[in-house]
């Protein structure tokens, strides 16, 4: 793919990643790879009960085990915390949040809730000692079902007296009365219930932490496998009462996150607290089984969605009621996840201001949920895209045709949506047309006529999904209106060194996204240098003190744009120096290809390298100008970015076994201008497979007592290469008008679009058998049951 006409050069090239050699050779260091002499190893004893009173904790036997330094119960550490574990998103004034400490005191509330911990001179000694801690539990009835939780039949947390955390309504004044009227007047309507099963993020690198104190100097360094070193620093300082300026947080190589490392975890706080207490470094590395229980889960919603449409099938109203599963406690942004979806339940469709959204979120005795790739937006897209198929079936028209009738027209952009948010740019018909060509939509429909005949056991299905990814979190004032506890800006510093090498300091925190490569390309384009001459510094608060980190597909459209703006500032300053040297007016200078030239006098020129050296020596600068070429920017985006696209999935379903084979998958994504299409495609591939995995394979399964049945990777089915198809990617390019690079995010698009595409395809294949819906994950057993039920058979 190429860039738009107005940019040439390095942007848009498929540049290979500079990150790769270190990662490919084992040279890269993840947190658990760091050599830390004298470190004590932390191990955490976790509740085997979903809900139990902690009657007593006897640590004496464990404390006398070989190699053990200390053993602590939750009560032992109660005076350590300046405050409880942080939740940064109190979505309503009256939101209920149970007190949550790194180790439970009095009552454990999910299987995996920390109850006690050990420090020892090796990881194995620490784990061995866990077995010697004697905890007397009084098991209590656990609450697993969301509607059961809503009933308050059993109240999990006595202190808040209810399982309801909050009810949040999206209030749209103009919608008052409109929604009911639209449903009363509707030519067609559908009312559907969808279940978003719980998912386990399962980044390949388990979480790991190391806290290194300087007992005499007073400083503390926290290494963590985190997506959010900057947020972690602020929250750790607040929770532990450590002066923030004495805390340094470093995220070394980080092996994937997908939202699961967008958090402040008990083990991070425990390591810092115990390092402070003992004066020794303290480290901890999660085991996978531990992680499945004690790292956040994703999704977990019951969605009721109703669509009203006129006689042409054009949407006239949407009503949504959600129940959100918070799990046992609120983690960093747990309550906000359903809100991020609230704005997307009309998809890419024109909808009058007739929208009614309400979400009630409840506590359950399961692992806390939080942001998982897409965070609220995959759920919303799933609901509207499944419901559009239901509406198409109700009307009796092709689902792609129904979508085309409802697409927001390209000429309407920027488009003020029913929620008041303004979508920046879009061209939905173009993306849908390209996807339809790539998968031969018409040809597939023709094949279905001959293949899906009565009695056929291999049925062909095609699923369509269109989407908006509301990303680039986020304009700080919009976050304020949602009661989020921080802003959405990003920081950047660009520094030209005396030898014309360039350092870029970014507040983004990559963990697989290739920021070092991509950011060097932005600087190369702006400054007229080779990307090889640009170094990108990040993920260490001593080097990059300001930032809001990487999540929500924000890094390019906020952090990357910040870098471009900082480059502009550097160029402005360099222009003054060059003008002074060339005895010209700065306004007469042009900058391109790394050189300043006097307009109309091509022989009067000065390369950036010479300017950089002049700025360094400061021997002959214009009066009042400070030495050195460096600029800092903090950029608060004026809008979200709104990538969009159309995905299509072709499946064959074996009606005798319920087996689903994905024959072809087409992803057409429009993320505006692409900095590096190689990386864009990689993001799409991975995202698609993660969403497809929700559709076909993954579910965090709990039994009625709250025991996690999928606590290892042997039980939780992260798909392997043999379980997934190749992904055909295509792109349209509709630049964002809200930033100078014309870019939008791409990190979550694949995950947002693919889940409904896959399920729509399966239901399409089986519609001739009377199947209207298939639950996720659509395992052979589930699909077979859906067919059997539709055919009137026994379940």
């Amino acid at each position, binding site marked *: 793919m190429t860039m738009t006409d107005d940019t040439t050069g390095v942007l848009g090239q498929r540049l290979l990643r500079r990150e790769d050699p270190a990662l490919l050779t084992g040279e890269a260091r993840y947190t658990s790879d760091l050599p830390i002499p004298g470190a004590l190893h932390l191990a955490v004893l976790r509740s085997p009960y979903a809900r139990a009173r902690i009657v007593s904790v006897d640590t004496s036997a464990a404390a006398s085990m070989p190699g053990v330094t200390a053993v602590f119960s939750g009560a032992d550490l109660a005076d350590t915390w300046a405050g409880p574990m942080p939740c940064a998103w109190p979505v309503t004034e009256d939101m209920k949040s149970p007190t949550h400490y790194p180790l439970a005191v009095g009552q454990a509330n999910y299987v995996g809730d920390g109850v006690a911990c050990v420090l020892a001179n090796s990881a194995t000694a620490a784990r061995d000692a866990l077995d010697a801690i004697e905890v007397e539990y009084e098991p209590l009835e656990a609450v697993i079902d969301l509607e059961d939780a809503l009933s308050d039949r059993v109240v999990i947390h006595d202190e808040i007296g209810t399982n309801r955390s909050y009810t949040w309504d999206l209030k749209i004044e103009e919608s008052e009365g409109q929604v009911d009227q639209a449903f009363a007047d509707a030519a067609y309507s559908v009312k559907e219930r969808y279940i978003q099963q719980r998912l386990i993020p399962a980044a390949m690198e388990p979480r790991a932490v190391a806290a290194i104190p300087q007992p005499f100097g007073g400083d503390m360094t926290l290494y963590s496998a985190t997506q959010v070193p900057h947020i972690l620093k602020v929250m750790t300082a607040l929770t532990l009462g450590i002066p923030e300026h004495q805390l340094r947080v470093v995220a070394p190589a980080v092996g994937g996150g997908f939202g699961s490392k967008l958090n402040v975890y008990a083990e991070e706080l425990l390591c810092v607290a115990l390092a402070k207490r003992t004066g020794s470094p303290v480290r901890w590395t999660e085991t*996978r089984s531990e992680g499945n229980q004690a790292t956040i889960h994703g999704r977990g919603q019951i969605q009721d969605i109703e669509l009203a449409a006129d006689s042409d099938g054009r949407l006239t109203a949407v009503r949504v009621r959600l129940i959100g599963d918070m799990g046992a406690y609120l983690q960093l942004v747990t309550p906000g996840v359903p809100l991020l979806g609230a704005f997307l339940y009309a998809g890419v469709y024109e909808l009058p201001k007739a929208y009614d959204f309400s979400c009630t979120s409840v506590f359950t005795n399961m692992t806390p949920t939080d942001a998982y790739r897409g965070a609220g937006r995959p759920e919303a897209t799933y609901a509207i895209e499944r419901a559009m198929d239901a509406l198409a079936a109700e009307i009796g028209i092709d689902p792609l045709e129904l979508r085309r009738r409802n697409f927001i027209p390209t000429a309407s952009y920027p488009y003020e949506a029913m929620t008041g948010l303004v979508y920046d740019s879009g061209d939905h018909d173009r993306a849908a047309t390209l996807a339809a060509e790539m998968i031969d939509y018409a040809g597939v429909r023709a094949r279905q006529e001959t293949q899906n005949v009565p009695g056929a056991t291999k049925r062909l299905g095609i699923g369509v999904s269109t989407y908006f990814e509301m990303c680039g979190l986020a304009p700080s004032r919009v976050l304020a209106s949602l009661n989020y506890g921080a802003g959405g800006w990003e920081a950047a510093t660009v520094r030209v060194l005396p030898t014309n090498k360039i350092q870029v300091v970014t507040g983004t925190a990559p963990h697989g996204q290739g920021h070092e490569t991509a950011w060097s390309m932005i600087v190369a384009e702006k400054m007229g240098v080779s990307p090889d001459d640009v170094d990108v510094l990040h993920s260490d608060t001593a080097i990059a003190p300001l930032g809001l980190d990487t999540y929500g597909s924000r890094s390019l459209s906020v952090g990357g744009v910040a870098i471009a703006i900082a480059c502009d500032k550097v160029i402005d300053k360099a222009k003054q120096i060059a003008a002074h040297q060339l005895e010209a007016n700065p306004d007469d200078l042009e900058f391109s290809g790394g050189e300043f030239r006097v307009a109309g006098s091509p022989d009067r020129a000065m390369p950036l390298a010479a300017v950089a050296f002049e700025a360094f020596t400061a021997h002959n600068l214009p009066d009042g100008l400070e030495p050195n070429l460096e600029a800092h920017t903090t950029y608060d985006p004026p809008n979200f970015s709104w990538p969009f696209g159309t995905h299509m999935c072709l499946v064959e379903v074996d009606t005798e076994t319920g087996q689903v084979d994905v024959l072809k998958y087409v992803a057409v994504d429009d993320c505006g201008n692409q900095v590096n299409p190689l990386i864009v*495609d990689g993001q799409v591939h991975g995202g698609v497979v993660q969403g497809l995995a929700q559709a076909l394979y993954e579910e965090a399964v709990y039994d009625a007592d709250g025991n996690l049945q999928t606590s290892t990777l042997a039980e939780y089915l992260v798909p392997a*290469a043999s379980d997934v198809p190749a992904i055909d990617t295509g792109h349209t390019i509709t630049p964002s008008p809200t930033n100078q690079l014309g870019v939008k995010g791409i990190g979550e698009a694949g995950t947002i679009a693919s889940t409904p595409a896959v399920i729509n395809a399966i239901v399409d294949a089986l519609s001739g058998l009377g199947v209207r819906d298939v639950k996720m994950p659509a395992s052979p057993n589930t699909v077979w049951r859906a067919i059997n039920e539709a055919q009137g058979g026994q379940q």
Partner: protein
Amino acid sequence: MEITVTINGKSHTADVEPRTLLVQFIREQVGLTGTNIGCDTSSCGACSVHVDGEAAKSCTLLAVQADGSSITTIEGMASADGTLHPMQQAFMENHGLQCGYCTPGMVMAATSLLAENPNPTEEEVRIGLEGNLCRCTGYHNIVQSVLACAKS
């Protein structure tokens, strides 16, 4: 127990606890941390190494079982002059990695796969790598990397 293991051409003699896994020995006692640990059920393959020339998940072996064997880890794949192994090069050129955590194990498994089957089909590559999990790439470019390496 005392064991002697050759790793990347260098002999290591050490005392190990009988319960020490090979991956723990490689990482903690030899200090080669390129071999990663991604699970505790031998499901993910992040710890794949070559034991006497064949790919093995180093969490499925005790260190004592590796006594006398010759092991190659990811650190032993590139040449001393810094030239990447053709499989590493193929992963780089085809964007076969993102976060990199599964990558060492993936490279070890893939080289072993091509040693057994130098010209695999796409499906054979997918099946051949089913013991190695990746969460970032959706496998698309990993498969392309292995096919490209087979061709070169």
